[in-house]
């Protein structure tokens, strides 16, 4: 189905230019727009209510304003019957009572009783911690990967894989920043899953490169890598397609709460697939990988003999 002699590494200059542009745009957007952080990280109050019929947002806003919640944002969530009300952490009252007051004022003035679907309150201290923990989780996973890949392969591969992962994370974050999609805890989890996925792809390619370095007679690292990339290409694309299929199902059917999670993964899987071909291997090549680096007789045979 796929042509098996594509010159991926010959095109690495184009890939580098494309990636550099994407990275610059992402970083610039992150610097200028920042991320639209959800209340998981900023702290604040969120109330989701549902009506039997389409809700009149104008009246709701008016009601809230009259009750002193003038900084409340009111918007539909998923359907016209569901409404999401958000409040920033408020001066004076930054306690859990806020959501109760909101509901009271809505139900007092509204014609129809709202069904409470969700209430979230995150204190500012919790938000800060979650953000910090999230950042640390990203760092630790990168570091763990660096060590594992360096141990199983070679440090040049470790650097290549982490470069590809950073590339994926920054561009996915950039995507969220550029479109100002809400970044909450589930999206952070998605970013970490993207790391896992993209790494999975990269390792498969690396594994083949290592095997070919040992078995093929060619000397040119570039050629061996090209062969490896071509050999794994159909697998890379197949897996991306199946994963993308389920993610699309999740994005369309999974509901509003999980929507951005699915979007982050979809973008990440796309970028991850690209980076495992066009970033991970070229970086290893640029670092000057040679046959000797991989010629150490590793006790790989043990694993293979245990095969089912």
């Amino acid at each position, binding site marked *: 189905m796929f042509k098996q002699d594509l010159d991926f590494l010959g095109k690495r200059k184009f890939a580098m230019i494309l990636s550099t542009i994407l990275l610059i745009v992402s970083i610039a957007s992150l610097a200028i727009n920042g991320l639209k952080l959800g209340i998981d990280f900023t702290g604040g109050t969120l109330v989701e209510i549902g009506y039997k019929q389409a809700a009149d947002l104008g009246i709701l806003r008016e009601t809230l304003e009259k009750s002193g919640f003038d900084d409340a944002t009111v918007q539909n969530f998923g359907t016209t019957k569901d409404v999401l009300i958000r409040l920033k952490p408020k001066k004076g009252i930054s306690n859990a009572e806020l959501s109760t007051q909101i509901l009271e004022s809505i139900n007092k003035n509204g014609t129809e009783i709202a069904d409470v679907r969700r209430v979230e*309150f995150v204190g500012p201290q919790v938000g800060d911690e979650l953000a910090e923990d999230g950042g640390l989780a990203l760092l630790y*996973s990168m570091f763990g990967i660096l060590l594992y890949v360096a141990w199983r392969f070679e440090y040049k591969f470790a650097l290549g894989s982490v470069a590809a992962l950073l590339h994926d994370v920054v561009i996915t974050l950039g995507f969220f920043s550029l479109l100002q999609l809400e970044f909450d805890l589930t999206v952070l*989890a998605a970013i970490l899953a993207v790391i896992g996925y993209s790494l999975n792809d990269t390792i498969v390619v690396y594994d083949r490169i290592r095997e070919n370095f040992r078995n093929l007679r060619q000397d040119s690292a570039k050629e061996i890598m090209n062969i490896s990339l071509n050999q794994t290409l159909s697998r890379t694309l197949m897996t991306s397609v199946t994963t993308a299929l*389920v993610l699309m199902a999740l994005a369309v059917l999974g509901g509003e709460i*999980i929507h951005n999670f699915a979007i982050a993964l979809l973008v990440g899987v796309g970028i991850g697939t690209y980076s495992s071909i066009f970033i991970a291997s070229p970086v290893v090549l640029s670092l000057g990988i040679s046959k000797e680096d991989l010629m150490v007789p590793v006790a790989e045979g043990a694993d293979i003999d245990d095969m089912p």
Partner: protein
Amino acid sequence: MQNHFPLWKNLMILIVFVIGIIYASPNLFGNDPSVQLASSATIKLKQKQADVIKAELDKAGLNIKEFEFNNNKVLVRFNNIDDQLKASDLLKAKMGNDVTVALNLAPATPTWLRALNASPMYLGLDLRGGVHFLLEVDMDAAIKQAEERYNLDVKAGLRSHKIRYKSISKNNGIIKITLKNSVDSIATQDFLNSDLSGLTVKESSEAENTLLVSLSRQEKLEIKKFALDQNMTTLRNRVNEIGVAEPVIQQQGDNRIVIQLPGVQDTTKAKAILGKTATLEYRLVDVEHDVQKAVQGLPVIGSRLYYEVDGNPILLKRRVIVTGAEIVDAAYTMDQNNAPAVSITLNGIGAKKMGKMTQKNVGKPMAVVFIEYKSKTRTVNGKKEKYKEKVEKVISVATIRDSFSKRFQTTGLDNAEEARTLSLLLRAGALAAPVDIIEERTVGPSLGQDNIDKGFNSVIVGLILVLVFMLIYYRLFGLVANIALAFNLVVIVAVLSMIQATLTLPGIAGIVLTVGMAVDANVLIFERIKEELKNNNTPQSSIFVGYEKAFATIFDANITTLLVALVLFGFGTGAIKGFAITLSIGILSSMFTSILGTRMLINWFYGNRRVKKLSI
């Protein structure tokens, strides 16, 4: 022989398959609306009470599906929600204060499956609906209270040892005692060190015969630990009072408590009850001194100025007769004027103190002080700062007509609701230190069901898409991979049910993602087989070599993903943990099903026979 599994391998895979099906099956049966009854902490439900409950329900003509009495708990299952609600109202009215009645959705697992310890997956709050609170214990307040206590102890100690001091002052948690001479100073140090071991005593380097006394580091740790433990106990009691089936109350870190109340809808009430630090104090009224002097700001020895609810100033003795901590039971009642009241029972020590005091002071007035901490925010140097305001109001002043000790009534409360809440709080015990709700996540029941439906739909649709795609692309091998994928889902659900890990919406997303990624192992193997075929290997050896070569790759690739899942688990909170768990289980089970499972099927199709062409 190539491509042939020994019998034990086939058997093992089949056994795993059967076990998987058995333990995944409880998830198919849904829930019974039910009512759960448990007694309060001290008294246990007995068989006799269980019989009474059953008789009451039968008398009311309610259709009981099943009646269980286990571990001092009664669980009554009903056929519909109507009966459940009727039964709950009935039992609440009949059983009184001693028994808590909670609505519950009990899994309708058939008895034979329950006998195997099989139960459905434990759904997280985002799926079943309920409230999650994260509470922070105000440790500064706990320390301050302890310092206050020690301050009094130090003064009392100086008095009882007949040591006279020049001055004593308290600043920033340090008590500064200036004594007359070095003899007194040494005597003071001696008794402080022997009697009050929780204090660190230092001689001041700035002034002579001056001691600086503060809480030792060890003591501070003890106080914090005690405050947390005590608060956990109290909160557990309070949750029991609210009546929640399967509540979760856990410590998190040094100063936080997680509370999860599945199925609770009325969060306002839950919040009010969990966070409240209301308690009572009984004090004698100071009738010897003039209140007006105190109002003008003149200090009155041994007494303090309070205000009644209507704003009248009143002088009360500093010495407390009894506090809320000495109350063992409190119930809401009506006094003789039909006004709301709380009837109170004291413990032995409290009763003795109250008895002595009332005997000596018949004819004198006694006051009840209602104390409540309210969380407020103020701005200090441009920075927002949270603080607790102690609100004290004198809710009743009454003349002691006769001596009393163990049981009595307190009146003067605003309304019935306040009396009810106060009695509940007194019953459950006071919080050792005030708590703040720093995180709340409430999911209503409609959203919970929505989340389940949406999650389920995405799993099914995602699965079908992958199945169709694999079948078209890999034909027979695709079919085999599909069977393995379905098996994989069964195993994931079975493992989640067995370990009773919490399934959350992100957890379902993890399952969906696993469905997409699980076929990866098969894609790797099948692509290898195709390559081998292209290199003109025989079909049999292509299968053999394909599986063999792909294994190391699959292993490496999955280990790294598992690594990331572990990091996620370590750092994540609730929902994210759910995602990490399903992802990890999915990775491990997919390695089993897509390597061993598919191999078994492929061996059945192609093993031990001559094959010219593979359907791949």
